């Protein structure tokens, strides 16, 4: 069987940063593998370790720089990788859910996986929608926010737990092929050592352009536009106690006692 894991190189922002127009100043960004995708890779690799004849292919959409990130996936155990990029994507201000859906759908058609694993969301734009949207586009079954997965390869069924709000989990069976969006905590992602990353240099990262995927440049066109970016205002109207720990604790104790606490 073949497992396709979608990964994204996301930008993390330093604690202090500056905004330049509608984006964060590049100097304050650090690029890294998206946290949720790390769990998706681990899940894919664990499947390949427990089932026979599993190929794990990792796919990313991103410029050459993102090879560093996808190499992490290879170092952790993915067999090969596909990187989709194109000059016309470079020019796009942002790739929305629809654009990513179409790009990944073309890769799914090319690779024909039995299972697609993606992270629940990307830490930067936080759409949380690409996986399910992709499933619809390629006609796969799906499940969102999966925190436990058991695969019945023979029966073609994935038994999953979906992490609902309020400490409730939903137990669902979905038919394969399927797209599952993977929640953090489903496993313990392994470390990609520098040795592993160096070894991963020998694995294939196949570059694919829009042409290769049979797509035209307008795939990147988006109806979404970011017109403003700002730091959220702190709405704090908290009463902050000041002084030594003894003093502040004393003041807080007074408030608590007035509220009937500890009486």
């Amino acid at each position: 069987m073949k497992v396709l894991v979608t990964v994204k190189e996301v930008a993390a922002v330093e604690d202090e940063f500056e905004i330049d127009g509608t984006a964060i100043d590049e100097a304050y960004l650090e690029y890294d593998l998206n946290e949720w995708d790390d769990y998706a890779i681990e899940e894919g690799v664990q499947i390949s370790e427990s089932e026979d004849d599993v190929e794990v292919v990792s796919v990313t959409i991103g410029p050459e720089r993102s090879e560093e990130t996808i190499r992490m996936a290879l170092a952790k155990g993915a067999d090969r990788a596909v990187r989709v990029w194109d000059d016309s994507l470079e020019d796009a201000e942002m790739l929305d859910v629809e654009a990513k859906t179409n790009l990944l759908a073309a890769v799914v058609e090319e690779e024909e996986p039995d299972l697609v694993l993606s992270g629940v969301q990307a830490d930067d734009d936080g759409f949380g929608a690409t996986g399910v949207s992709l499933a619809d586009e390629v006609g796969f079954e799906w499940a969102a926010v999966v925190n436990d997965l058991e695969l019945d390869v023979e029966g073609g069924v994935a038994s999953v737990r979906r992490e609902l709000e309020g400490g409730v989990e939903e137990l669902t069976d979905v038919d394969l092929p399927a797209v599952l969006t993977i929640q953090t905590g489903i496993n313990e992602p392994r470390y990609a050592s520098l040795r592993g990353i160096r070894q991963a240099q020998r694995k294939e990262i196949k570059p694919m352009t829009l042409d290769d995927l049979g797509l035209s440049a307008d795939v990147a066109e988006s109806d979404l536009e970011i017109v403003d970016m700002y730091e959220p205002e702190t709405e704090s109207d908290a009463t902050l106690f000041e002084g030594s720990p003894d003093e502040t604790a004393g003041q807080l104790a007074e408030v608590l006692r007035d509220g009937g606490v500890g009486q």
Partner: protein
Amino acid sequence: MSDVLAVAEHRRGELRDVSYELVTVGSEVADATGGDLHLAVISGDVDAHAEALNLEGVDAIHTVDHGEEFNHDVYAQVVEQVYDAVDPQVLLTPNSVNGLDYGPAVANALDLTYVSDAVGVEFDGSTLTATREMYSGKVETTTEVEAESVAVSIRSAEWPATETAGDASIEAFDATVDEDAVKSTVKGFEEVGGGDVDITEADVLVSVGRGIEEEENLDLVRDLADALDATLSSSRPIVDNGWLPKNRQVGQSGKVVTPDFYIAIGISGAVQHVAGMKGAENIVAINTDPNAPIYDIADYGIVDDLFEVVPALIEEFEG
């Protein structure tokens, strides 16, 4: 005139709060252009849910009685059909775990532009302006959608719930569910980590987060909880580390609590956590970082080392 279609959410027989909030957003958006707000109520006890959602601002409620619980294959089909029938300009869904399990599929199938996790929405008839967070809440963006049709998923607890009764028309919608296309089966639910304590019942919660650093330091907050006759709860990392059982977790994937006093110790206040405790009457924050988002919602705060403050506080109540 632009109509709005919003999809209600329920689970295990109960409407979820976000359904009432959807009415608030939906009627705001619809009113801006004089359009109508339609609600879709799918599966479960649709009549009771429709009755409960017959609120001010709702113009029409379409019920589809099919099955008991949420199933994304059913929802995807039904919402598409209701959408086609109502032909709205804006589709509103909750940005909940279930909302994310059909919203993007529906948007893709109907070729709608999908804007997820909005914390603010404005619509002038042609441009929808959504406020969204990026980079885990470090920035907010104003996003414009120039589109004929958009789907927006809204973050829960960002809008007030509509509570005033209304006079919407309630009609059963005749949807056709292709059972062959339903390829997923919900087998059941499981409460995670039940246990003896129900933190949702507590009047006073002492809640501990990542700032506690190490498991053994939990004794310190336990002592405080004892001194205050309070119940101990926590944020997600503490539970993820296995230091406290899941039933102590406050937040989106944990419990929603509304105590009289919520004392957050070493909790930064990530949005997922805040979702579970912002209904507390009084919120007290003890955290070294004055910029921690917890202070945005706190009523009282001590910006200092918890390892200094908590012992002093225990002393206040015990000494």
